[in-house]
């Protein structure tokens, strides 16, 4: 087996007396889509924030390419190649698409004190990158607030990919999208995997997970319930694991198998 790009071992995170994570372990291999499933409150968001350097670990270890690491800021995680696309997308509605695309990573040219943002380059790259995933940004100078939710998601994902992430963490990227844009995002995730990146795909939609996932880890109440590879587990089993099994099966029969 290849060395994991990122390994999280027995991660714990406490917020005061609240134990958000009580020992979560996963490995992210290069070129795999690792789906992280769990119901609301399972600790998915907290977990990826520890990966992304937003939260510090209370306990546990993190290994990047086999080396132990500690991130004290999102910047450090970013510099190490761990990029995160959050549910709130880290997009600022009042700023232009271009300015959002390059936020925090602005390319500059010239010699200080005449070191300016290379706006021409930024606009061109933004338009090109957006076209690649089929979003037609009519004018990269327009404010992100004018884009649809789906378009914003795509800007956010292509931004992370463009900046050479080695591990791409996607926090429910498909939850707010229409059917066509969802399939676009899933195709894009597949493409990212083929380029050798490790993708952490957080979702509670089992169908979306099954569509692209190589391995599936289920979180419940701050713990890992286990990791299964593609083909070892069915969609129904995943769904049951996520929901804690029995109750959902009961509900499912009540509702005529629609859940």
């Amino acid at each position, binding site marked *: 087996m290849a060395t994991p790009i990122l390994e999280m071992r027995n991660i714990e995170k406490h917020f005061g007396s609240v134990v958000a994570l009580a020992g979560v372990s996963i490995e992210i291999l290069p070129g795999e889509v690792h789906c992280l499933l769990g119901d609301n409150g399972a600790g998915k968001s907290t977990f990826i924030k520890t990966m992304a350097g937003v939260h510090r670990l209370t306990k546990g270890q993190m290994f990047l390419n086999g080396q132990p690491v500690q991130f004290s800021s999102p910047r450090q995680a970013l510099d190490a190649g761990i990029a995160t696309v959050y549910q709130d*997308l880290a997009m600022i509605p009042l700023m232009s698409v271009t*300015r959002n695309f390059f936020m*925090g990573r*602005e390319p500059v040219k010239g010699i200080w004190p005449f070191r*300016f943002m290379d706006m021409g380059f930024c606009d061109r790259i933004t338009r090109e990158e957006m076209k*690649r995933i089929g979003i037609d940004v009519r004018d990269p*100078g327009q404010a992100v607030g*004018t884009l649809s939710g789906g378009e914003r998601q795509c800007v956010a994902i292509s931004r992370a990919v463009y900046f050479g992430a080695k591990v791409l963490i996607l926090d429910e990227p498909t939850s707010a999208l229409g059917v066509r844009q969802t399939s676009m995002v899933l195709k894009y995730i597949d493409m990212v995997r083929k380029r050798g990146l490790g993708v952490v795909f957080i979702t509670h939609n089992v169908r979306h997970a099954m569509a692209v996932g190589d391995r599936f880890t289920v979180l419940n109440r701050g713990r890992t319930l286990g990791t299964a590879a593609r083909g070892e587990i069915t969609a129904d089993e995943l769904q049951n694991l996520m929901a804690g099994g029995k109750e959902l099966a009961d509900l499912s029969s009540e509702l005529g198998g629609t859940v």
Partner: protein
Amino acid sequence: MTDKNSLIETAADERLKHASPLTRVLRRPELGALLGLVIVTVFFLAVANPVMFELSGIMNFMAPAAQLGILAIGASLLMVGGEFDLSVGSMVAFAGLIFAACVVTFGMSLPVAIAVTFACAAAIGFFNGQLVIHTGLPSFIVTLAFLFVLRGLSLVGLKWATGGATQLRGVREAATDTPLDAFIYKLFAGDAFEGLFAWLAAHDWIAKFPNGQPKVTGVPIEILWFVGLAALAAVVLSRTRYGNWIFASGGDPNAARNSGVPTRRVKTSLFVLTACCAALVAILTVLDAGSTDARRGFQKEFEAIIAAVIGGCLLTGGYGSVVGAAVGAVIFGMVLIGLTYTTIDQDWYLVFLGGMLLMAVFFNNIIRKRVTGER
């Protein structure tokens, strides 16, 4: 990178259209301020004594506009960065006290006194910023406290430095002891380009007195500071990485931080910058008057914020323009001084001030909604 194209069908979308020039113009945050400037200019061209728009008249209203403008530049950057500083007016008084005390009471040389003044202002700005960041309190409240604290300290300090008075005199005499002092003095006081103006007068390009002296001896130095700083700040805000970070920190600090923008550093540096702008105004005005008093900079914080708002800054941060704020300050100077060229009672100035603020906020809101598609 080329494999992307093969995997995702590139939508051959022919809807690609470029924003019309009109949209581009409407998108500029300083549009409202420029419109206001045109209205105010037309108004005074119509009702004021034409002397107002002669060279001497322009210098007359540009000098106070420049003093306010320097504050407004700091205020607008800070507002784009998502914070307020209500203490800038008091900061002018406090920095003026420090500067005058350094020169007169402690007998420091001018460059040292200037450095000490900026250092003190920067330290207070830094403290303000840290307080806002670490307590998470609105900067409105924290700096409101400093509005009173600094004003009070200025009064107490002045009495201490003068032995009971609230005015400290003799700055100009004490500030020009040595040749070096005299040179530095020229950078912060008096008029610039005096030679050029004398030459222009000699060739009858500008108005002169019967003895051949030009009526306007030069450009008041604060105007040069104002224009220079405005240009510098405008370029920094719109064209540099730091400028992008200012927009990001004000637009959504959380999103900015998650994208790797050091929002705390950006905000702290903006508080320091605003305080240093106040210190610069203090030095300019104290040297100009030759004295300092406790009322210096009174209510300037509000005028600076109003100028910034007229210039298109949103109260919620993340949007605005330095050029707009500078134009806003020019509008102020024009009305303040312009009314003396008319038969209108000068106290209408305050009425105008409030009215302009309301109109600007109203106008900016409409524009912003159109531009960002906000509903």
